[in-house]
């Protein structure tokens, strides 16, 4: 997080993490497509010749709250390929919140787990733990055959702390829900630490509502947040209501 008092601007860094080809870039593209003109900047992809993300994607989103505090959201992806470990570590540095994009296929379970361990290791290198980090998990590619069943995911998710979302990023399904859920968790954590709502007269629920609207969602925020299975959004919900 970076706060510019002079221009009353807050920049929040959100990182989409996950194994190679789980759909991180697709999530950002879907967000970019969903966003109203003016709310989103160009999606920047730092890629290799063979079209795999080498460094990261960067999607800038800007929202201005009633309290005249502009919030800039910078959404990053990390390269999923195992060899880009040092790059992942660089990108994840300074993240305020993380969306972990998992591949729903049962065959990818091992890769998801490995990538998650890698995330934990990389956070550790920055002196952070997963517990401190606002985190949501998205099970992407729900439309493919031989995916882990919803019941199975829900059962596992109920045991965990992180809100879990189901998505088909290629068709934009579940993308905004995951993003709003992540933003909600991240804002709550930043507010708890920096007392932003009080200092800037910031209306967090209205802000989330605005973000959701500008991302083309017509549902009320409570419904968007409720789209998750399991996890502990509840803990933070009283504040959002």
């Amino acid at each position, binding site marked *: 997080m*970076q706060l*510019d008092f002079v221009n009353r601007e807050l*920049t929040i*860094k959100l990182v989409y993490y996950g194994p190679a080809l789980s759909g991180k870039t697709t999530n950002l593209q879907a967000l970019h497509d969903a966003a109203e003109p003016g709310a989103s*900047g*160009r999606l*920047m992809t*730092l890629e290799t010749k063979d079209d795999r993300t080498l*460094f*990261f994607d*960067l999607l*800038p989103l*800007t929202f201005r709250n009633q309290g005249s505090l502009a919030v*800039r959201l*910078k959404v*990053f992806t990390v390269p999923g390929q195992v060899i*880009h470990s*040092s*790059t992942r*570590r*660089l*990108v994840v*540095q*300074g993240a305020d919140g993380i969306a972990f994009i998992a591949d729903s296929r049962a065959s990818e379970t091992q890769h998801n787990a490995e990538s998650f361990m890698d995330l934990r290791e990389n956070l550790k290198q920055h002196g952070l733990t997963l517990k401190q980090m606002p985190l949501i998990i998205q099970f992407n590619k729900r439309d493919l055959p031989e995916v882990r069943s919803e019941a199975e995911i829900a059962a596992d998710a109920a045991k965990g702390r992180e809100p879990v979302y189901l998505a088909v990023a290629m068709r934009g399904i579940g993308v905004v829900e995951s993003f709003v859920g992540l933003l909600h968790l991240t804002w709550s954590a930043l507010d708890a630490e920096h007392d932003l709502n009080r200092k800037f007269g910031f209306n967090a629920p209205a802000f989330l509502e605005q973000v959701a609207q500008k991302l083309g969602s017509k549902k009320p925020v409570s419904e968007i947040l409720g789209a998750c299975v399991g996890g502990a959004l509840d803990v933070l919900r009283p504040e959002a209501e």
Partner: protein
Amino acid sequence: MMAVTTPEHSLDDLTLGHAVALEDLVSRAALEEMAKSFSALFHVPLRIFAEDGKLLADAADQIALYTYLNASKSGRAALQDVVSAVKSIDPGGEEAVYQSCVTGGGYRIAAIQYDGRRIGRMVLGPFIEPTVTEPAASLLNIDPELSKVELYTLFQSMPRVLDSEVVGLARHLARTLDLILFSGHRALLTSNMHLASVRESFRELEDKNDKLQAAYDRLKELDRLKSNFLATVSHELRTPLTSIIGYSEMLAEGLAGELTGEQREFVQTIRDKGEQLLQLIKGLLDLSKLESGTMSLKKAQTDVRAMLRDVSQTLTPSARKKGVELVVDLENGLPMLWADSERLRQVFLNLTENAIKFTPNGGSITLSAKLTSMDAAHQDDSDGMVLLGARRTAVEFRVADTGIGIPANERERVFDAFYQVDSSSTREAGGTGLGLSIVRRLIDGHDGTIRIEDNVPKGSVFVVTVPVKRATIS
């Protein structure tokens, strides 16, 4: 606020903060080139400024009217006022802001924005709407000393563009610049990420190197301890073994009473095996001495011919037993070598013994020696020979067999202690794998070299080259 970006900027500075400056995203020369081409195409003077006011691109030719006005004091002052007014304009949104000029023309000033932030300004003008044909009164009245006719004429040569067109041009330019800046930013981020990744990988490698170095140091220390242990143990083993051999000898000689044939045979076996064990322990001891560098060579003038004949005599019985022919082929006029004759003899005993061991019945072994020069033997090391020293004469020894041969990729490793090409051959041929490592070290001790060549049509040749030191030592 607009610090110049260097690679030292962290990724967060470049993506989250305010460190991105116009100059970092585009080359100044390229920006000026673009501005000039734009200006020439649309007939509007154009200047591009960084956010801190620095002029980055100037595509505005000196206008004759302004040159004329600048010559007069009040003309200059009036133009100064216009410049200050243009500078103080704060273009906020998309639309270019108009600023009139004392000449009756005007300027359009627009913001250059990137990622929602202003990072520079563009100033288009001065220009005059084509419909305006008469100079403004303000121009004619600046200074009574200026020629009205001249002012009138120069006014006509001012750039003429519709204001609405300039507004459109400014918008178009802003969009073009945005695209250029986006590409520039992308390139900047890519190169910064490259640098950061390389630095990060370098740090990782350094970490690993440190760990490897520590492990290597530890292994070296362990190796030293092993050599010490080997030396101590070999020494301690030798003492009781000497007694065992001594007493079994005495028994065999009947000093403790007459032995039956079978008893004598058993005692003889004990003695033979004891001797075998003693040779092995001596080998270990030699190796540990050589490894620790504590073996001293007793060098003296050595007769090569005598030494090789002795080797051949010693080994002829075992060669004959195996049905292998042992030939000695010595060149005439071999010089005396400055060497430890006992150790050198050990070298050739070992090599020849090996050769017998690995040569099948009916094969042959040739022991030869000839005079050569050291640099000729060292083809690979001949660089800078003229600087490094005179040719050294040397004796080249060859032990050639017709045995199983040694594959090329094994030829370096056979000199490692305890290494054997094929460990299954040990059972058949015997040996501890110590011999050649001792041989290599002994030859090193004589400044010599050893290598393995193919023997034609089969077998291998061990080529030992030992330099003949000038016999200056009496």
